[in-house]
């Protein structure tokens, strides 16, 4: 299905199954422990051996030599794969530096060897006995030291700078201006399930049971890195314990397992130790962001400038904090630019809502500061700066933009009119109470996505696609889509995911998964409906599918009649043309937060939070809400506690475990309310849905920071907002 013009009314609009609150179809498997995660797939290959990674103890330099004698002599050791015995692997996809091979060390905890043994304990014990002789090279580990001289990011069409109108002149003549700098720290995905893979060879054919968000990309990447014909690579990843972008791309667990399995002559499984998740894999880069606004006294922005510096190893961008600023608010004169410091730290890469998460933490904080300077309600400041077109390219309208509605609905439901309006002025016992808000903004992305559907002789339907469910609810919304299209009950639908032998989907990332993967299934189901209708000489466009029957022209036939002679298979994909060039497609939220700050100790707790979201058709209000509250929780972590602490002398993240890297615990998360606005966006996808998985995170950090200011009168521009940053500015005790 080529999706070139927005759909009119479709079967999905009936919303008998789609759009209905539906509990997870894979829920029972998960709560009973029967959903197998990568490391637990004991049954997929016999005789699995255990691999344990020997990580580099230095951040930069070279392996001079490795002494394996003692390790090899340990009980149970089968083989040891070392980095020096293979050439540096080519970059797969999304990689900044090679995952394995060669003697060069580019980051701390880089994998230098894989010890393979009969048991996990034997592999781990022997790994500690591998002796590495290092040659150390000094590195650039200090982002703050490098940031002032960081060069502009070089994009494919030159430096990443965008100018509209004359920012400097407008800023100079604006009656109200602000000029503020915000900082966000390095952050880790810290998902529950670490990266893990089991590899097995059959001749030239490699199978990888792994934990991966993007099966089709990753299959190509594995083939490239290991110099294999992609036809000889199979990936299977039916369940993931979270990813948040950390599993968009293949990591060393997969390639080391594959190389070691070849060497050992038997299947090998590898899971990254928790510390390796922090230093061996990827993270969100820290940022330093300067914002300058010029505004009229009525709040209208006349000049907008946002400059963001982030860091990464040479070869790739860091965190694009300016992306949303090019789109979010009206304003005739604009300047945005991105700089990148070349750091010798682990690789920075995509983490949930890359760009917007950090960017909005700064942009929406600065908007709050402007509102205060103007003496304006921060909600109204956003509303007067609404735009219905891409402000840099005004002939490009939004497909649908409900920012104002999100803010109004959210403000009303939250009781924004009863908020504290005097910073530091609302005290309940020892608690200073504050309210803050921010806009959430995240793009909706169109991606090709394919699926196959099989209607079997017993009238049950199977959906096959390499789409992944990273905890998001893909199984459920794909089943709902197929059930709706074929008029079948949900119980009659089986969804199989994550297998690279199945049609290539959009995968899970960038909150593009839901609307594109369901659209792919929709396309396949349209084909299936046509096939069935033809068999009965019915008009497929007039036919209704309901209760296991097809009905048209007063006639009705059972679907099982159609499959009497064998199953019917249909495969199709959704593909897009230029709708995303013609229209800006984005999702919006209004985030509202109430916090309490202990006036003595500075301890800060969120008391309640609310998000009003517009994200097109909500395919399943239960799983969509789960996505949003999970994202809001991540936003609280980003605002208050999460930070990878860098040792700038030795170049590594020091707090590399879940005790030191503090994500929110249950006690940190209060009542969360989510409101979905009614919105259908036929430009965004045939399902008229947009993404929602990242929207819930975008803007939360700023809403918390703005609430902290409102509670205390202290503006903290350096995340996370830990008490040491404002303790001395709290009222004397």
């Amino acid at each position, binding site marked *: 299905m080529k999706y070139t013009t927005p759909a009119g009314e479709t079967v999905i609009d009936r919303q008998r199954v789609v759009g209905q609150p539906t509990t997870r179809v894979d829920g029972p498997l998960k709560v009973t422990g029967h959903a197998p995660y990568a490391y637990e797939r004991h049954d997929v290959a016999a005789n699995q051996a255990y691999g344990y990674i020997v990580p580099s103890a230095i951040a930069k330099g070279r392996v001079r030599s490795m002494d394996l004698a003692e390790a090899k002599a340990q009980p149970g050791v089968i083989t040891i794969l070392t980095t020096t015995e293979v050439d540096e692997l080519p970059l797969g996809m999304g990689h900044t530096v090679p995952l394995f091979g060669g003697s060069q060390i580019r980051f701390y905890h880089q994998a230098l060897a894989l010890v393979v043994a009969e048991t996990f304990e034997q592999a781990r014990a022997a790994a500690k006995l591998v002796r590495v002789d290092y040659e150390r090279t000094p590195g650039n580990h200090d982002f703050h030291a490098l940031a002032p001289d960081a060069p502009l990011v070089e994009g494919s069409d030159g430096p990443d700078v965008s100018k509209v109108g004359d920012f400097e002149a407008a800023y100079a003549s604006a009656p109200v201006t602000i000029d503020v700098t915000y900082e966000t720290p390095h952050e880790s995905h810290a998902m529950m399930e670490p990266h893990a893979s089991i590899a097995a060879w059959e001749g030239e054919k490699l199978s990888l049971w792994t934990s991966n968000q993007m099966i089709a990309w990753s299959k190509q990447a594995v083939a490239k890195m290991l110099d294999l014909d992609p036809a000889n690579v199979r990936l299977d990843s039916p369940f993931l314990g979270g990813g948040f972008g950390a599993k968009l791309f293949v990591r060393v667990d997969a390639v080391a397992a594959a190389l070691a399995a070849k060497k050992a002559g038997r299947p090998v499984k590898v899971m990254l130790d928790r510390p390796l998740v922090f230093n061996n894999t990827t993270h969100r880069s820290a940022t330093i962001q300067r914002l300058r606004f010029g505004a009229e006294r009525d709040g209208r922005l006349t000049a907008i400038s946002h400059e963001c510096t982030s860091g990464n190893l040479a070869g790739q961008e860091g965190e694009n904090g300016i992306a949303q600023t090019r789109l979010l608010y009206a304003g005739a004169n604009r300047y945005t630019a991105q700089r990148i410091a070349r750091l010798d730290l682990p690789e920075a890469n995509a983490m949930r809502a890359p760009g917007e998460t950090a960017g909005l933490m700064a942009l929406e904080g600065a908007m709050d500061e402007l509102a205060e300077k103007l003496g304006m309600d921060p909600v109204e400041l956003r509303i007067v700066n609404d735009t219905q077109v891409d402000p840099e390219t005004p002939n490009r309208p939004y497909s649908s933009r409900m920012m104002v509605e999100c803010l109004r609905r959210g403000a009303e439901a939250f009781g924004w009119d009863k908020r504290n309006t005097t910073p530091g002025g609302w005290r309940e016992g020892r608690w200073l109470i504050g309210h803050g808000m921010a806009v959430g903004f995240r793009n909706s992305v169109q991606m090709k996505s394919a699926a196959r559907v099989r209607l079997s002789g017993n009238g049950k339907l199977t959906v096959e696609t390499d789409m992944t469910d990273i905890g998001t609810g893909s199984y459920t919304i794909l089943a709902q889509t197929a059930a709706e299209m074929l008029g079948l009950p949900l119980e009659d639908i089986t969804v199989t995911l994550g297998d690279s032998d199945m049609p290539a989907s959009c995968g899970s990332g960038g909150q593009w998964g839901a609307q594109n993967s369901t659209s792919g299934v929709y396309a396949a189901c349209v084909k299936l409906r046509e096939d069935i209708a033809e068999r009965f000489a019915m008009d497929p466009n007039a036919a209704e599918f309901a209760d296991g029957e097809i009905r048209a022209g007063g006639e009705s036939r059972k679907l099982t009649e159609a499959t009497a002679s064998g199953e019917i298979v249909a495969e199709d994909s959704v593909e897009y043309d230029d709708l995303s060039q013609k229209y800006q497609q984005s999702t919006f939220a209004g985030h509202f937060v109430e916090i309490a700050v202990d006036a003595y*100790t500075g301890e800060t707790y969120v008391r309640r939070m609310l998000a009003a979201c517009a994200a097109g058709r909500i395919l399943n209000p239960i799983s969509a809400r789960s996505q949003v509250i999970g994202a809001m929780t991540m936003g609280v972590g980003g605002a208050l506690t999460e930070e990878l602490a860098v040792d700038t002398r030795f170049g590594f993240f020091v707090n590399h475990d879940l005790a030191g890297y503090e994500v929110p615990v249950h006690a940190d998360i209060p009542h969360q309310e989510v409101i979905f606005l009614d919105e259908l966006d036929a430009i965004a996808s045939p399902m008229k849905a947009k993404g929602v998985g990242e929207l819930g995170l975008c803007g939360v950090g700023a809403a918390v920071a703005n609430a902290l200011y409102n509670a205390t009168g202290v503006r903290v521009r350096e995340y996370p907002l830990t008490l040491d940053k404002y303790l001395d500015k709290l009222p004397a005790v």
Partner: protein
Amino acid sequence: MKPFSYERVSSPAEAAAAAARARGAKFIAGGTNLLDLMKLEIETPHHLVDVTGTGLDTITETDEGGLRIGALVSNTALASDERVKRDYAVLSRAIVAGASGQLRNKATTGGNLLQRTRCPYFYDTNQACNKRKPGSGCAAKEGVSRQLGIVGVSDACIATYPGDMAVALRVLDAVVETVKADGTTRAIPLGEFHRLWGDTPHIETVLEPDEMITAVTLPKPLGGTHIYHKVRDRRSYAFALVSVAAVLDAEGKGRVAIGGIAPRPWRVESADAALPDVKAAARALTQEASPTDQNAFKIALVERTLAGVMAKARGEAA
């Protein structure tokens, strides 16, 4: 993890004897700290003496009107004991401010006292650490030190004793009872139990290698208002930046001990004497502070947390 041998014993005397017999032996109770450290090869005992069968899992009343808490009493059992909740509430509150429900079910009174520091460099075996590897240096001092100690620390080590329970025990003047392989017993006041690091940060308490903790005793109840306030970055499942254990009367006089700032629960006589003057007490507690740039905020935090505790003792609305 290094290979080790393992035995279970059924009495404290046997335990001490078993530990004395085997080279590089350690007691294991709940295992919630020791096993983690063994997996990382920070602890590498050759032999484990499992003391969970020694029958020391009861809380009994002493002739002096206090309580004797067996070394194997779990943190959960101790915190929920009616007598403890009534007469030593600061202890209950300190315990439930620590770790998680699951961990507290396994963790024991003896093991809790001996839990090791949470300095991140101690946990990373690639880094210099005098506590883990004597003489290798201290990577934390000029590294990431926000969580670490400000008083009682040394050039060799700036780590803290991280626990909560012991801070309350310190304010209650608890005493640690032990037995050695030769059958001799000792009663060690909690204030003398943990050592300051000095030049030997790897030696953390006054216990000898084969000496087993058998019980912790509490003197008779003090009365007063019992408060434990633990300040941390998230609301649960994190170690203290600063914690205050306090037993105060209605005028705010009494005693306080501070956690999260020193190699042991930090209690200073002159600070107790200064109460209810919070500023003077805080000054007495931190006057010898030698913080790093990253943890200097703990000096102000001690004072402010103490002020909050005082307000609470005086009945200010929570």
